[in-house]
Structure formats: structure tokens, C-alpha cells
């Protein structure tokens, strides 16, 4: 477990600048909360909150797509995998790293959101529930991206991830395909977040979160299986 945690922490450390840039959006929300009357501008505040939250799903896809590619291109992966670290552990480290990055962001957003939106009358417990939804969505999206990046370059991996996440939701609107809505819960979790309002903050439903956690595990296993066959020393250029 220790190598997994060390690889995860190392991943977060390497991604510290993008994470800090994303945290600037949270600062923007805090700034709006300070400078505007929270009660008067509450709908604007909620809109910014939702936007800032959903951006991070896209960011987690970029983290997932580029993690292995960057490590292989820089050849740093060789000195890590030359130690007693299996490829499964390495991938677990990256998935945990993506989760930690999401957790840092969601925690910061949760604190700011519960302060600004809470003051405007939005239930604080619902803010934190939405943050749990966001972590689950980001982790799943990042893991799917990581899985594709084991055999595709980051550009195609991002495209494939977007297709896998969005297509079931799009197709579910067709008659008789409604069940597809539950196939990939990222869109469902994002919709839960985007549909919440002061009038209807949304109800707490854990099933998409549990499904996202199970699918994260499945995609992690799949990526570990694929990655075990990859010649990592071959140039990715």
C-alpha cells in the first residue's frame, strides 16, 4: 500500500500547478461571495458554483489522459517501475492521485460553497453531498481516461473517454433505451449537480455514487490488465 500512496502523492505534487490554477476558480467564487450580497445574487453564485464544479470533471479527464503518457515520454516511469512496484500498484497510485487531486478541489469548493451558498439559504448538507457526487464523477472519468491512455495517445484517449461518458446519456433519451442512463453514472452525477437549485436542491441518492465507485474499480482492473501487456520502454513519440 505504501508505494501506491507514495506514487499518488508524487502524482499530486507533479500536478500541483494545474490544481492551483483550478483552485483560482474557487477563489473567484469566494470573491463573489465577499463582494456581492449573497442573498441578492444567490442564483449567480449557484451558477458559478455549478460551473466551477463541472469544469473539474473535464480536468480529471485531462489528468487521466496525460498521466502515463507524460511519465513514459519523460522516461521517469522506468526508474519507478524498476523498483518493487507492480504495474497494478503503479496504476492504483495514479487513480489514487487523481482522487486526491479531486478531493482537494472538492474540499476547497465545498468549504467555499457552504459558506457562500449556505449564507444565501442553500442547504449546507446538500453542498457536501454534491461534492461527494463530484468526487465520484471525477474519479470515474479520470479512471476511464487512464484506461484509454494505456493504449491511446492523450488526444484520442480524451475523445474516447468523452464518448464513453456522454453517449449512454444521449442514447438514453431514445425510446426503449432509457436504461442506458444508468450505464455510465458520470453524466447522471453531473446532472444531479447541475439541476440543483435554491427551490429544489435535489434529493440525496447514493446509488449513482455507489455505481460510480464500482465502475471505477472495474475500469481500474481493466486498465491494469491492458497495461500489463504494454511495452512501456517503447517511445511514445
Amino acid at each position, binding site marked *: 500500500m*505504501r*508505494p501506491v500512496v*507514495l*506514487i499518488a502523492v*508524487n502524482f499530486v505534487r*507533479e500536478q500541483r500547478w494545474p490544481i492551483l490554477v483550478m483552485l483560482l476558480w474557487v477563489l473567484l467564487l469566494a470573491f463573489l461571495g465577499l463582494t456581492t450580497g449573497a442573498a441578492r445574487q444567490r442564483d449567480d453564485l449557484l451558477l458559478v458554483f455549478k460551473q466551477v464544479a463541472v469544469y473539474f470533471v473535464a480536468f480529471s479527464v485531462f489528468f487521466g489522459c496525460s498521466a502515463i503518457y507524460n511519465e513514459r515520454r*519523460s*522516461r*521517469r516511469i*522506468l*526508474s*519507478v*517501475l*524498476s*523498483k*518493487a*512496484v*507492480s504495474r497494478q*500498484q503503479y496504476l492504483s497510485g495514479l487513480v489514487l492521485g487523481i482522487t486526491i487531486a479531486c478531493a482537494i478541489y472538492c474540499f476547497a469548493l465545498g468549504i467555499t460553497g457552504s459558506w457562500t451558498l449556505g449564507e444565501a439559504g442553500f442547504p449546507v448538507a446538500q453542498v457536501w453531498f454534491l461534492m461527494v457526487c463530484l468526487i465520484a464523477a471525477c474519479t470515474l472519468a479520470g479512471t476511464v481516461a487512464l484506461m484509454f491512455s494505456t493504449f491511446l495517445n492523450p488526444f484520442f484517449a480524451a475523445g474516447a473517454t468523452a464518448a464513453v461518458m456522454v453517449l449512454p446519456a444521449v442514447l438514453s433519451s431514445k425510446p426503449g433505451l432509457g436504461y442506458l442512463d444508468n450505464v455510465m453514472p458520470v453524466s447522471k452525477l453531473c446532472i444531479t449537480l447541475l439541476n440543483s437549485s435554491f427551490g429544489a436542491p435535489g434529493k440525496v441518492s447514493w446509488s449513482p455514487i455507489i455505481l460510480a465507485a464500482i465502475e471505477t474499480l472495474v475500469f481500474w482492473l481493466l486498465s491494469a490488465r491492458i497495461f500489463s*501487456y504494454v*511495452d*512501456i*520502454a*517503447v517511445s511514445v513519440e
Partner: protein
Amino acid sequence: MNAMGYVLEFERVTKEYRASLSRRRFRALDNFSLQVEAEEIFGFLGPNGAGKTTAIHLAMGFMRPTHGCGRLLGEPFGHAVARRRVGFLPENIALYPRRAERLVRFYGAINGMKAAYLDKRAAQVLEMVGLQDDAKRNVSRFSRGMLQRVGLAQALVNDPELLILDEPTSALDPVARVTVRELLLAARQAGKTIFLSSHLLSEVELVCDRVAVLHHGRLVRMGRTADLLQSSERAEIMARGITPSSFTGAVAQDGLVKISVLGCQQRETLERIWDLGGEVISVVPQRRSLEEIFLEATADAESPSEKGAQ
């Protein structure tokens, strides 16, 4: 390690690379077999593109062989637990930008070393590679030679049984090279095995117990360094009173005849000179370098085996 005492073993290993958008294949290793015994320094030689790094990457589990198999410290290639007892220095090492001491500790920690011992050991290995004064500096500001030494430190941090070094002295200055050479000899003295891939044949000749020459993915020569050098020992005989045409390869020089012969043919040649009524002026033993043996071995080897689409 297996019953034969091999710490590293390749058994009829073939590795083919395939270009991503074509069916064309390039064979980097061709039916390659090799055994490295415990407590020896093994020199792995070959020109660029011979397949040395491919063989090392297979041993480390970075890639899978197309055919054949191999064992590292008694375990199949790619076995993570076996790598705990291995130190590896890749060619052109790339490191995370952080303080040298922290970096070495990071590599030790992911290799399962305990924190209490690791602090002491990190300082110790950095001192061994001569970086004790730069331990607190970020490696992103290091020169290539210094990076190579940090790479060597991370390879040594777990006190490995087997050290696999891919061009360890390529970026080092002469003083640092001597340090590394002494380090390798001390490691062997301590019972470690070293698998050393290098282009610096003079270095290899100085430290290696055995060498193998790889060319176009095939093993073209292997043996004990001393035996290889001895078997190809030659002597230069200067004589007078004979004609150069009496001996193959003899040349006239300043009124004398110069004959270059293998050590094993020396006695026979001298007797023949005397039989022909000649007089031997001098016999000078000529010891060939590993470089000459290497050039000879690679020149004799076959052309590249490249496979087209079937």
C-alpha cells in the same frame, strides 16, 4: 536465484518491435541466451542498436519477449518482488525535480525500505557517489553528470544483490569514472553481481570478469575477459636472413622481416625461421585490447535480421 547460481538468465529470447501503422517488424533480439553468475561483473557490449537496452528492459519487465523467457534472481522477468533486490540505472536517466536527498528517499521508499534506515542510507549513497554537498539541491539544476550520479545513488539505495547499469559512466568526467569503477569493484567485493552495459571498452576491460558482445540482436562472442584477451594474444617477430614471401602476412621493414603471429603459433614460426637459416632479432608480445576483439566480433557478425510482413 536458481540451482545453477544464475542471477540473470535469458533463454532463447526474441523481441520484435512492430511499427504502429504497419505490419513491418524489426527484430531487436534474436534467439538470445545468456547467463550471469552471482558475484561477477558482467560486461554487456555491442554497437548502437545491437539490442543491449532491449535485453535490459526485458529483464526489468518493462516489455515482454516475443518468444522465449528469462529469469531475474530466480523469478520470471517482470516479477515485482524480485526487483526489490535489484538496482537499475537506465540510460539517460530522467528524475523528478526535487532535492537529491528526498528523491533518493522516494525511490527507496517505493522499494519498501523502512523510513528509519532510509534516511541514513540515502545520505550514505549520496556520499558514495560524491554528492553529499549537493544533497539539499534540486536535481533540476544538476548537470548531466550529476544526474547520472543521483541515478546511481537511487540504484544503490536498496543495497541491491544485482546492479543493472545501462551506460553508467557515459556522462561522467574522468574523476567520476574512477569513482564509479571503484564503487563497482567494491560492490563485487561485497558479493554483489553487476550487469554492466557500456560503450567504454577500456572501462569494461578494467572491471569485468566476463563479457558478451551483442550484434544485431545476436550474441557473437562471450567469455571471461582474461581468456578472450589471452586467446587473441599475438607476438611480433622481427627476423633477418629470410624472405617475406616465406610467411603469410610478413612484411619487409628496414631490411628486416616483420611477422605477426598468434601466441600459439609463435614457437612454430620461430623454428621455421631457424630452419630457413634466418636469425631472430626480437619477439615482442602484443596483447590485443577488448576494443580490437569487439571490432573483430562485430565485423564478423551477420547482417541485420529484419522481417517483413508475412
